[in-house]
């Protein structure tokens, strides 16, 4: 047993070593996991599906070596236990064939990038309680016919998680922690790795044509439907944002009105007190908690507006990317036509 006189016991030393984990810098995915995710999301698009990621947590790299899909859940409550059973069964079976049995997160598909919802954050918090480092991979199958592999690895930032646990989202706390909507989600770069065997196979099997399907998709000239859908979603989100802003305006107006009322009441009390002092009576307290105008108004949570802002910025980024591609393609067409 450790000697108490040495200041730190053995147990303390062990726990403190655990806390100094290197921050997550990169998510390394195997080609197998990438293909499986793509296959699953594509098959069920436009429905949104989820699945579990399995892998290893090594230093500052989170390796994702395999994954398995979740069955689509019906609205039935009885199937809750079924879902847990399915997960346990899959993990057990995969363990028998030496697949890494370690959950490192989950993946989900999305439609044009509208994935920042409160449920995502809740799922994150649930996972975070059990696993020290987990990540969420988002795949967008609707962008794959533009030739882009729309895979993103997300994580909640630590400061946001602390704030969420304390369930306190008013302006002061946020200013204190300097948490703006940009800091809610952290995007982690993804590296793809393949075993030597599969890379040998792929090299052999690569078709001889110098141009692949991927290029063909990228050079398509019609980007209008994609832009249209993006803009539609953008407009909806802007409506939501205005609704949130109205809520804040309402709150501020109420607050200032309440403060004005409080001042008026305070003045009256002070006058009363002066009169009482003149008459030799006890002065009344300057506060009156039972008076409704002193009731603190609850400040609306800013979580929703942060999420909406994130979504909007995501749409804007996508529009920018697609427009950039569009420009190059158009100039190419022009050059071709002139010849």
């Amino acid at each position, binding site marked *: 047993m450790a000697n108490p006189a040495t200041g730190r016991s053995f147990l303390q030393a062990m726990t403190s070593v655990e806390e100094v984990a290197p921050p997550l810098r990169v998510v390394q995915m195997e*080609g197998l996991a990438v293909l499986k995710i793509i*296959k699953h999301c594509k098959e069920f698009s436009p429905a949104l599906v989820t699945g579990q990621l399995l892998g290893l947590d090594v230093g500052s790299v989170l390796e994702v070596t395999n994954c398995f899909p979740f069955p689509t859940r019906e609205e039935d409550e009885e199937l809750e236990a079924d879902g847990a059973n*399915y997960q346990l069964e899959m993990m057990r*079976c995969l363990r028998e064939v030496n*697949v890494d049995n370690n959950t490192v997160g989950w993946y989900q598909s999305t439609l044009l990038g509208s994935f920042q919802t409160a449920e995502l954050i809740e799922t994150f918090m649930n996972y975070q309680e059990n696993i020290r480092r987990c990540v969420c991979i988002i795949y967008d199958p609707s962008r794959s016919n533009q*030739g882009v592999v729309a895979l993103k690895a997300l994580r909640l930032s630590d400061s946001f998680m602390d704030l969420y646990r304390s369930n306190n989202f008013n*302006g002061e706390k946020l200013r204190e922690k300097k948490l703006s909507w940009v800091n809610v989600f952290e995007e982690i770069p993804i590296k793809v790795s393949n075993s030597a065997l599969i890379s040998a196979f792929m*090299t052999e099997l690569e078709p001889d044509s110098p141009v692949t399907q991927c290029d063909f998709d990228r050079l398509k000239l019609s980007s209008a439907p994609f832009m249209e859908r993006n803009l539609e979603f953008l407009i909806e989100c802007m409506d939501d944002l205005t609704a949130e802003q109205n809520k804040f305006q309402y709150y501020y107006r109420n*607050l200032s009105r309440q403060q004005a009322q409080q001042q008026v009441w305070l003045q009256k009390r002070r006058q009363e007190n002066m009169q009482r002092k003149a008459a030799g009576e006890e002065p009344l307290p300057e506060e009156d908690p039972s008076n409704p105008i002193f009731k603190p108004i609850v400040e609306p949570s800013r979580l929703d507006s942060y999420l909406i802002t994130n979504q909007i*910025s995501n749409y804007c980024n996508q529009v920018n990317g697609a427009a950039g591609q569009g420009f190059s393609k158009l100039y190419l067409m022009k050059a071709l036509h002139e010849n």
Partner: protein
Amino acid sequence: MATAAATSSKQTVLQYPGAAPSVSARIHPVVLFNICDAFVRRPDQAGRVIGTLLGSTSSDGTVEIKNSYVVPHNESADQVALDIDYHHNMFVSHQKVNPKEVIVGWFSTGFGVSGGSSLIHEFYSREVQNPIHLTVDSGFTNGEASIKAYVSASLTLGDRQLAAHFQEIPLDMRLIEAERVGFDLLKNTSVDKIPNDLEGMESSMERLYTLINDVYKYVDDVVEGRVQGDNNIGRFIAEALASLPKLSPTAFDKVFNDKIQDNLSLVYLSSLTRTQLSIAEKLNTAAQIL
């Protein structure tokens, strides 16, 4: 675990059941990746990996292999044992996700078909009508990657079944999915980042440029007489050039300018939105001066 006793099969003169099979198979790259990954992770004493193939059969006899999973097995000189419970459990689990995928056959790594394979094949033919046997040669014997698919026809002499004859069927390696993801990502042992929109665009354009250059050089060579012209290629090139839509310069300019203006206005709109967002944020978290 259920076990199947081994029989040695040496065949002589036999009756073939009928004409060559009209089945062909198509395989998705996920399956290949799965098999290779399973092979890399196999337990030390196993020489090869065996598992089930899932997929669907279309009406014209083409079997599409879409998914697979490994089944633990034990193999020694004269005995083969397959974990049937595991196989069944995994199948049920997979069915929960995708009920349309059914068992279409089984795979094994290693070159060629061995004695034990026929027993396993028999087991699988109890599950599905005409199972496909896929061999993935992970040892690269013959110095090349050989992925072959077989169906088996049983050879009978009178009433007794003597042997199983594995006939190779055409296998279509549909790598469209892999192409979509991009061979760069799937071929190298490690790729540092997934290319985003503009980088991908750049590489596609470069490839197109080299392609056009090659075609140009070829045409040049043919015209100068350095290379014998091939009529087919010539026709292809003419077709490609003719498929450019014929627009008068004014019409083309109009279309072009319209599109450019659309794109510009979209970029402007998105920057405007972002400015709006930062203003909104400042307002929302501004300190209150009361």
